Every structure is written in C-alpha cells, then in structure tokens.
C-alpha cells in the first residue's frame, strides 16, 4: 500500500520530494470488506478450502451453539443472584468462534470480555468463566490454558500486553502469534493506537481483531469516530487493515487464519474489523432500551450468525432438525455440568488475597495477613 518512502523503511533520511508539479499524491490506501455466506445462508463468494469440509463447518456451528447456550445460562444465573454482572456475547458468536478456530494451540489470545467462543475453543472452561463473573479470581487461573491472558476489563489496556507477547515470540524465533481482541469503543483509546503503531514499526506477529458490535455501552459506533471504517485505523500504523462480515463465521475464520499465517511467517501484523452486532444489553447491569431503538435490534436479528450457518448446512442437506436438536441438548448438558461445578466450587479462603500478591509474602505484610485470619473480633488494625 502506497509509495515506497525512504523515511519509512530504513534508518536513513532522504529529503522530501522536491520536483515541480501540482499537489502530488504521495500515498493511497484502500479498505476491503469480505463476506462468504450472506445472511440468508447463501454463498456470496466462493467458499475457502476449509469450508468445503463438512466437519469443519460443523465444528464451528457446534462451538457457536455451545457459546450461546452458555450465554443464556449465565444470564439466567445472574438473574437469580448466582452470578455477578455478566457481559453477554449474544449475536457475536461467529466473531469469537472464528478467531478461536483459526488460532493454533501455541498462539496466545488476549481477549476483551466477549470472546467466550474463542476462549472455550482454546481450553478455557465454562466453569472458569463463571467463577470470574462470580467474583472469584480462580476463574482466571485457566487450568488447560497456561499462556492466554484473562479477560480484560479496562478497555484496550491489553493491547500493549499483546505487543509484549508478540515481541517475546519474535525474539525467540517462535512460529507463534498473539491475537488481541477488542471492541469498537476500544479503538478510541490511546493504548490501542500505541500498540497498533508499534506492531507495525516492529513487524510483530500480532493480529488485532476489532469486534465492531456497533455500540460501546450507549455510545454508538458513529459517535466514537468519524472514520468510515475501523479497519482504516490500521493505516495510521502503516499496517494492513480490512473488514469482514463478523456474523459470517466462515469469513472470520478464513481472514483470521490468513492473517495468522502471514504473521507466523514474519509477514507482520494485521488489523481485522469484524462487523457484528451486540444483540443483548451491554451487561446484565445495563438496559439497552434506554438508548437503543428496539427496531434496530429487531432488524439485526436477520443477520444472526448461528441461523445463517444453520440455513446453509440445512440447505446443503447436511444437517437435520433431529441432529440440531441433539446438538442443543448436548450443549445444554455440558453447560449444566459446568454450572454444577461452578456452584459446587468450595469457598475461597479470605487470606488468599495475600497469597498471590508477590511470589513470597513480604515480611511487612505478615501481620496484616494474620489480622485478617483472626478478623471479626480482633479487627484489621
């Protein structure tokens, strides 16, 4: 993209161009958008290789259904006082599952907080996610996923972490990639920009996924920025940026896989904007009807990522209603088991708040820990 500029690709400085002429074009850029399955489940673009395989598509479908089943259950738990505030991923399952499916085990995911679909595929358990939203730090100690970062609440603050992870991979010559997922709102934050910028400058193995669900709580995508696309935020960093239909799991999976492949082989970072929609409230603590017209949500239903793939599978004659029912039942059972585990998790000891502060508790803190142990009567003085 754009002219070869000697400022940009070496340490040497050559003077700016000085020839005669009218205002010259010195750089140009474009942003592309890709979709494979349209919202009717029709093929809009010749399917990529992986999507020719039934098994692969079914795996994506299953993962999306599981994610949605989990989501419903989590909301129900919150409503009945068994979970704290919870951030739903309803409607965004494809954007998460596509990412999780494209990533290799050895890659590292740095999620925001709606990427359960990706996290589950990477080995984070549903019980862990429930513990987290249930107010228990143990939910971030992923038993089967040693290196992925936990959910990140302060928006975009994990983007710099992804830079560091990717740097470590590059320094050690590993064929690994860091994947950082964040929202449309997150693209307004300096942390995001600084991270994208250096990923470009240092050509790090780092893929940014912007899950543009059109809202940052009550602030619309349009109110965040005048940029026509969020993909073009990449241009500021001189890295490739593109849009995909984030409700088309095939498109997400394919473009993320492409980006990972490039990054894994030294080709540098990429930014992918996945266009999707937050079907639910921001969190269970939010009431989107205060700020968002109901018909907008209604209208968005037709683009549902799960229904779309289901239509396609059904049309291909590869998926019966019976099979579908069985899948839903299977997912329900899995989720129920996870919920059971969650509810049965033994209470955590209050002193644990001291036990992971440092590798070894500094002497200065011992009395405080003791006074917590003997709390109640003796106070924490």
């Amino acid at each position, binding site marked *: 993209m754009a002219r070869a500029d000697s400022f940009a690709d070496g340490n040497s400085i050559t003077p700016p161009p000085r020839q005669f002429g009218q205002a010259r074009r010195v750089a140009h850029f474009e942003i592309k958008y890709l979709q494979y399955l349209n919202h009717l489940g029709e093929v809009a673009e010749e399917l990529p290789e992986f999507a020719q395989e039934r098994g692969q598509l079914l795996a994506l479908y299953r993962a999306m259904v599981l994610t949605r089943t989990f989501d419903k259950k989590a909301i129900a738990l919150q409503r009945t006082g068994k979970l704290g505030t919870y951030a739903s991923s309803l409607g965004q399952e494809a954007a998460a599952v596509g990412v999780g499916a494209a990533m290799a085990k050895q890659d590292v995911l740095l999620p925001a907080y709606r990427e359960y679909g990706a996290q589950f595929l990477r080995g984070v358990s549903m019980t862990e996610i429930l513990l987290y939203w249930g107010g228990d730090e143990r939910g971030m100690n992923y038993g089967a996923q040693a290196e992925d970062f936990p959910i990140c609440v302060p928006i975009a603050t994990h983007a710099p972490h992804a830079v560091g992870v990717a740097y470590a991979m590059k320094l050690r010559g590993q064929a690994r990639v860091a994947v950082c997922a964040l929202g449309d709102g*997150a693209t307004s934050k300096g942390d995001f920009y600084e991270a994208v910028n250096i990923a470009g400058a240092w050509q790090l193995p780092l893929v940014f996924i912007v899950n543009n669900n059109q809202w940052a709580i009550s602030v619309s995508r349009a109110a965040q920025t005048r940029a026509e696309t969020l993909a073009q935020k990449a241009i500021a960093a001189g890295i490739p940026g593109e849009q995909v239909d984030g409700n088309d799991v095939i498109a997400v999976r394919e473009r993320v896989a492409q980006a990972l492949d490039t990054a894994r082989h030294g080709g540098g970072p990429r930014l992918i904007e996945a266009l999707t929609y937050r079907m639910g409230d921001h969190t269970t603590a939010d009431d989107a009807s205060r700020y968002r017209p109901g018909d907008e949500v209604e209208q968005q239903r037709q683009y549902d990522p799960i229904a779309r793939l289901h239509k396609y599978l059904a049309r291909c004659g590869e998926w019966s209603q019976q099979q579908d029912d069985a899948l839903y039942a299977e997912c329900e059972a899995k989720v129920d088991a996870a919920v059971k585990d969650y509810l049965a998790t033994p209470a955590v000891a209050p002193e644990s708040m001291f036990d992971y502060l440092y590798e070894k508790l500094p002497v200065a803190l011992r009395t405080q820990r003791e006074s917590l142990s003997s*709390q109640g009567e003796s106070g924490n003085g």
Partner: protein
Amino acid sequence: MAELTLVEAVNLALARALEIDPDVVVFGEDIGINGGVFRATLGLQARYGKERVMDTPLSETLIAGMAIGMAAQGLKPVAEIQFMGFIYPTLDQILSHAARLRNRTRGRLHCPMVLRAPYGGGIHAPEHHSESTEALFAHIPGLRVVIPSSPLRAYGLLLAAIFDPDPVIFLEPKRIYRMVKEAVADDGQALPLDVCFRLRDGSDVTLVTWGAMTHETLQAADRLAQEGISAEVIDVATIKPIDSATILESVAKTGRCVIVHEAARACGVGAEIAAQLAEHGLMSLYAPVQRVTGYDTIMPLFRLEQHYLPTSARIVTAAKRTLEAA
C-alpha cells in the same frame, strides 16, 4: 424540599450548575441519553442539550485533557470518569497540567475543572470497579480532592467544586449512592471546601474518616456510645488539602484517634493524618493512633470484598484498643 439519595443530590447539583451558569458543561462516557451508569447525569442532556451535556468517545486521557483546554477558555467543565478504576489514564493530565496550569502561567490561565468518579467497593461489581485510590490524587500539589458522604454534602460540595476556580477531583462513594435519603434544598448553596465536617461530638476518642466509611464509622460510634464511650466523628471531606487543624483540635480534646479508610493502608491518606498527629499532636496522644483500613492487597473480586472492607466491628475494636492503652 425533596428527600434525595446521594446520587440524586449529585444530579441535582449538576442540573443547578448547568442552569445558573452557561459555562458549565458536563461530559463523559454514557452520560448523555443513558444518564450515566449510575444515573448521576439522568435527564441532563435532554434539558441542557447535546452541546453542553455530551457523550465522549472511550478516551479517558482525552476526557481529562479536554477539560483542561475548556477550563483555560473559561468554561467550567465537569467530566465524569465512569469508575475510579478507569481514572488512571487521566493522572498525567491531572498532575502535569490541571494542577499546574495556574502556577506555571503565574495565574494567566487557570483550571476550574471537576473530574467526578464513583469510587469504592461493596457493590458486588466486576474487576476494576471497586477501587479506592484517592491517595494518589491527594499527593498532588495544586489539586483539590473532595469526597462527599451524604446527600447534603454531595449537593453542596459538588457545587463548591464546580465553581471553585481550581481543579477538583470529586470522588463519589458509590456504595452509599442510594443508602440514605436527606432533604436537600435546591438553593444553589455551596458548602465550604478545605474543611472537615464534625458529624458527631465526643470526648473519649476521635474517629476520622471520609466517603462510604462514614457510615460504618457512625455505626461504630453508636455502638461505642452504647458501651458508654463517647466518640467524636470527623468526615474529612476535602482530603487535599487536609484540614488537619480540626483533627488536631479534636484529638487534643480526646487524646485518641482512629483513622478509617477503605483504601489500602500503606501511603494511604490515613498515613498523612497519622503523620500530622505524630508531628503536631504527639503530646496530646494518650494512645497509639489506630488505622482501620483496607489491607495492602489488591481489592479482591466481590466474593471476598466484605473481608477487605473495614467494618464497624473493626472500628469499635480499634477504638477500644486506644482506650485500653491509656
């Protein structure tokens, strides 16, 4: 006169300020049509327009920095940070600029801005939503840090902060946003900054606190009273600069002091108060100063937050300890 909660009193003060002064502008994330996640700005955009009450992009550094630019132009910006856990990106702007603009320009420019943020734990909130890091701001010269602990003080102190010609960090104890109601007259009257409020007179021990902890502290005073111990309760309210004179005076009378805050202990604002006593009140102390505070740990997720937060029982115990020592 309406009976209002603390958060309603905040809303009323904002409305009053917008009403009486066209230079007041209110902004932050989700403060417009949504009225703020705690509804502190409810209805303000509808009444005062999108030009004076506006949602910003998700950019906290910008929110603080923009307020400085507005203030330099003579506006009176009142910016909201959605939770104190997201206030840290503003620190550079607050410390390096807001607190210095008047001094560095020798008064040519000044910075009448307010940065509001709900703070503190105890509401079962997610990670990063229960922070009490007021001490960071209380160390910054040129700044004021103000914390109301009742609807009346929320109304009066917020008006004072908005019309104060210097920058104010205004921290709202969200745990008590809706805990009690008080009759608040919408008379536009500000309360004084830079002074403590004596919430209860007493003669045996001085309990010093601020924010949501005034609640537990007053409870503790009640319990102590039942046991015949007379506790004086001081709400510091403006923690920067601190009105130590009032505290010293009280301790000169009682000879004993318990300082209560929710924040971590080490280098918390309680340290400054204890230090003032060690310097200027030593001779009146009958007993070691007690600090009843959060631990020097990270505020735990909500399952354990009650173990972290000081309780009235702990305060009572500490107060009694000061009496034993005598």
